[in-house]
């Protein structure tokens, strides 16, 4: 294991300290429980937005805290959902009476920990609503499993809802918006190499020199299928077609019920992409893949979208949701409209996503 770290058990904390030191004008760190929050929190007259998940995916989520995006992010241990107390304390610190929207990726650990936080917060005087992201078409047989995982659409949801909160949206409107963003996005990823959890010290899986894992998650878990290594154009085609050819995705998705403080399954459908759709396109590196390669992927994605009649109106290319030092990439497409594009364009100032300010 070749990593820039000290003791594995200090990795999350020290990294968090580094972020807070490097971006002290934007964010502050809280320890025990661990979370990062806007330096100017609580921001009055807006709904607070929080998120969280395992560490090892940086910049997500800690790099997205700041004006126009998240009010707080709760990093768990590496690849480990945060605990209820982190979420609870973060929500209490950043809210200012307008309520808290909590954006949760659909993994059983995250779902359960955010649920417990929601239960614990029910005695507080502010509203707290969890919304799930489940956009990973790499998960097959969604009905007999935990359903699709939350990946690339999370970044869109955090940016778009963050802008909307800044823009004055109410909690109810933000919840509607966030669910709509989730139903508009699809992702699919590939790993060219494994990654090594610091505390474990050995690669999570072994991959031959001419193999790749397709349909992976972001926690170093293996994908649905191991395939022979392909060139960038073929990989891009494989990933984008999984997304653009994905039929209507009907499923029972847990929706947060404020009354009972629990998840209630609701039938929802993600409509398939169709010619004429405008999309936000996202080519995400897994941490160990250099930027130049991601642009090679974007080049082909652009071509495929054009052939399919999908108009890319905005794009994001870079390492935003990583799996430690894994090599590989994710592609995400999000059907957009004037409202979403406007919100995407609004100013944002976080350690890792910044424009307009």
């Amino acid at each position, binding site marked *: 294991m070749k990593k820039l770290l000290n003791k594995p*058990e200090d990795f999350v904390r020290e990294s968090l300290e580094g972020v807070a030191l490097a971006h002290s004008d934007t964010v502050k760190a809280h320890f025990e*429980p661990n979370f990062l929050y806007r330096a100017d929190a609580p921001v009055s007259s807006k709904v607070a937005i929080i998120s969280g998940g*395992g560490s090892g995916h940086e910049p997500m989520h800690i790099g997205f805290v700041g004006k126009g995006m998240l009010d707080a992010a709760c990093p*768990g*241990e*590496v*690849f*480990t*959902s*945060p*605990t*209820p*107390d*982190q979420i609870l304390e973060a929500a209490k610190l950043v809210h200012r009476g307008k309520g808290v929207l909590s954006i949760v990726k659909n*993994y*059983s*650990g995250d779902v*359960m*920990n955010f649920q*417990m936080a929601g239960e614990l917060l029910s005695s507080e005087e502010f509203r707290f609503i969890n919304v799930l992201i489940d956009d990973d078409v*790499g*998960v*097959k*047989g969604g009905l*007999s*499993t*935990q359903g699709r*995982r939350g990946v690339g659409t999370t970044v869109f949801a955090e940016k778009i809802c963050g802008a909307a909160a800044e823009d004055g949206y109410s909690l109810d409107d933000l919840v509607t918006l966030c669910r709509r963003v989730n139903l508009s996005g699809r992702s699919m990823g590939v790993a060219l190499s494994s990654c090594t*959890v610091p*505390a*474990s010290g*050995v690669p*999570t*899986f072994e991959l031959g020199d001419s193999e790749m894992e397709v349909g992976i*998650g972001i*926690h*170093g*878990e*293996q994908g*649905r299928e191991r395939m022979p290594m392909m060139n960038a154009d073929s990989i891009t085609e494989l990933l984008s077609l999984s997304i653009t050819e994905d039929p209507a995705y009907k499923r029972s998705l847990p929706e947060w019920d404020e009354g009972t403080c629990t998840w209630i399954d609701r039938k929802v459908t993600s409509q398939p992409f169709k010619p004429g759709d405008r999309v936000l396109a996202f080519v995400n590196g897994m941490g160990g893949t250099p930027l130049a390669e991601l642009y090679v992927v974007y080049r082909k994605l652009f071509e495929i979208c054009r052939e399919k009649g999908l108009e890319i109106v905005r794009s994001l290319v870079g390492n935003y949701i990583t799996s430690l030092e894994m090599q590989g990439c994710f592609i995400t497409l999000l059907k957009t409209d004037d409202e979403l594009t406007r919100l995407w364009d609004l100013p944002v100032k976080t350690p890792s996503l910044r424009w307009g300010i």
Partner: protein
Amino acid sequence: MVTKEQIIKWLKLAANVMQENKEWLTQLDAAVGDGEHGINMARGFQKVSSHLPSVADEDIGSILKSTGAILLSAIGGAGGVIFGTFFIEAGKVTSGRQELGSVDIAAFLKAGLSGVIKRGGAQVGDKTMVDALAPAVTAFDRSLEDGADTTEALGQAVAAAQVGMTETTHLVAKKGRASYLGERSIGHQDPGATSLYLILKALYDAV
């Protein structure tokens, strides 16, 4: 009769066992999940263990509840909630007790199981720790019916948990991270079921 001292001994033992099996559990999780289960469980139980002196004066219910709360805030992931819930629910039905009879043990195992099922929604056969816990609960009850004492019944429960744990190897995961692998999850033993077995085994060893 299981005394409070034995409960405390159990939790210390569990912490050691988790530490000893950290790598094995992590390897099991690497095969079907994200490769950190053992690390997280060991960290959680370590914290439980170092917290024990400060709760030594409390009743068994409080000790189990605070054990659950610590696991909940020190483990994270699915494992943290599931094992945290198990102990919290077990603590609820043993509130105020300084020692537990076999019926109390039966009640706390059952409460733990139903708490876990309520929290995570997993059924027997979904390839989770429920596949070790549920047969253990049944075996414990049955042994008592057959006239066994607590220790014997616990021995039967541990044996049943072990069988359940081993049999997860042949299942397709339906819950938790392993479910993303679909058919590829076959052939691998579930890490959470393994942890549950080790924890029950530690209880048997402590009494």
